[in-house]
């Protein structure tokens, strides 16, 4: 049941517990308890809303920043990572393989805010060697959802 619940919630966080129980053919009380347990165990880390800010005329930029750092004795990358993720501007940070060490994602900020963050905060952290900032120009698909493609039911009633 756990995996089924998670698969559904991953696509539709707003589904009501009763509906979730109905489509799984399970008891609503059990489903509610399971969801609560998944939340308290941090299997479900949070629920968030995907917003296309462009649609309401808000000019907000997203940036993907590649960060090279010097890992530190004893704590490796984790300490630098924490110094980065503590900033509320950071929406995601990942340790990656390849040409850089971290990929930091900033979402929904002004160009100026992003520039200030990179030049004044990120690049001055001890251990940060260099940063490469990439502004996101257009979003096509995010978190599994195709951005801005309203779908019409084009099926015809035939036969």
């Amino acid at each position, binding site marked *: 049941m756990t995996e089924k619940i998670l698969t559904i919630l991953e696509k539709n966080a707003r589904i009501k517990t009763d509906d979730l129980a109905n*489509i799984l053919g399970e008891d609503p009380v059990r489903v509610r308890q399971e969801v609560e347990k998944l939340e308290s165990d941090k299997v479900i880390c949070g629920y968030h809303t995907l917003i296309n800010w462009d649609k309401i005329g808000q000019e907000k930029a997203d940036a993907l920043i590649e960060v090279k750092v010097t890992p530190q004795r004893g704590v490796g990358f984790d300490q630098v990572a924490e110094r980065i993720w503590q900033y509320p501007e950071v929406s995601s940070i990942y340790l990656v393989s390849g040409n850089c060490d971290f990929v930091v994602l900033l979402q929904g900020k002004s160009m100026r805010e992003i520039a200030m963050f990179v030049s004044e905060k990120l690049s001055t952290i001890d251990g940060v060697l260099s940063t490469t900032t990439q502004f996101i120009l257009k979003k096509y698909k995010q978190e599994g959802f195709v951005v801005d493609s309203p779908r019409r*039911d084009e099926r015809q009633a035939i036969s």
Partner: protein
Amino acid sequence: MRDPLNSYIEKIPPSGIRKFFDMVAEMDDPEVVSLGVGEPDFDTPWHIREEGIYAITKGKTFYTANAGLMELRKEIARYTNRHYGLVYDPASEILITVGGSEAIDACFRAMLDRGDEVIIPEPCFVSYKPCAVMAGAVPVVIDLKAENEFKLQPEELEAAITDKTKVLFISYPNNPTGAVMNREDLEKIAEVVIRHDLFVLTDEIYSALNYSDEEFVSIASLPGMRDRTIVVNGFSKAFAMTGWRLGYATGPARVIKQMMKVHQFAIMCPPTLSQYAAIEALRNGEEDVEYMRNEYDQRRRFLLKRFEEMGIPCFEAKGAFYLFPCIRKFGMSSDEFAERILNEQKLAVVPGSAFGASGEGFLRISYAYSLRDLKRAVERIEAFVTELQQ
């Protein structure tokens, strides 16, 4: 001027689904929510579509063999063996057609002589009876019963057999009822078929959409049935490929050979691009089928529960993507119910009577719709029946 028309064709009544949807189209109201469409709401999986595109770019735009690409026939042979334990020779026992519909038409025409009787249990999809008539045969209808969950009963079959009966037509999982017949149910039917020396045409287009705990069983796989059964299947429902128009028939070479004539002279060959896409579907599409099947199943459970909560009787349909709730207790015909709910709540559902007289008193509810649409639709049904009950 003389009458330009063929009297057989002229006498075929228009499809009941069509009639109802013309009414919906006339309303032309964007507020109308529909649970009427009988095709998957999923797009054809991308990797399959891509094979279609590749086929175009590589210039695979010629006719194929009449029976379809050998490569595809081999894949179909593997698929039917893997899923249904049936063994067919790709060279002589598999015919690829323009959808399952063409296979049914070709089969009736190849097997039935003028005046032969073909038994068709109803409620069923709207094309079977007209196809039998167009083949010059006489359709004999069995009215299936809700108390048997719309499964064909051996005694019902026995009672319909005359000395002119040649073919029994069945289709499970069923459109419009969603009924499924398991091995035990089919064994009883097979016994009658063999005893009376009949043939079976089985439309198994929904075979991949089976939600019961038991595996789908093809009647062709039962002892003594393979050589008296033609199986029709296709890509439309399982792989969400309706518009590609691709189906197939499998059966004994003797029958397929004659069906091939009908097909070859009327159709030439199935669409080439679709055949290349279908090879990809059979080789790498099973995960997609499982994903869609699971989605349908969740919606099915959601609707069944909601009908139960609303007090609308609905047997637990275990196949296809339809429920067939009974609306008799509201004291009106299916037509009237469907028409009123369309006008009063702007919800389009197909009256059960469109699928035969025994569908009277029922509605066909398609769940080839998103959960969001289904929820909106159920709210409208609830509002409508609440008002009726007051």
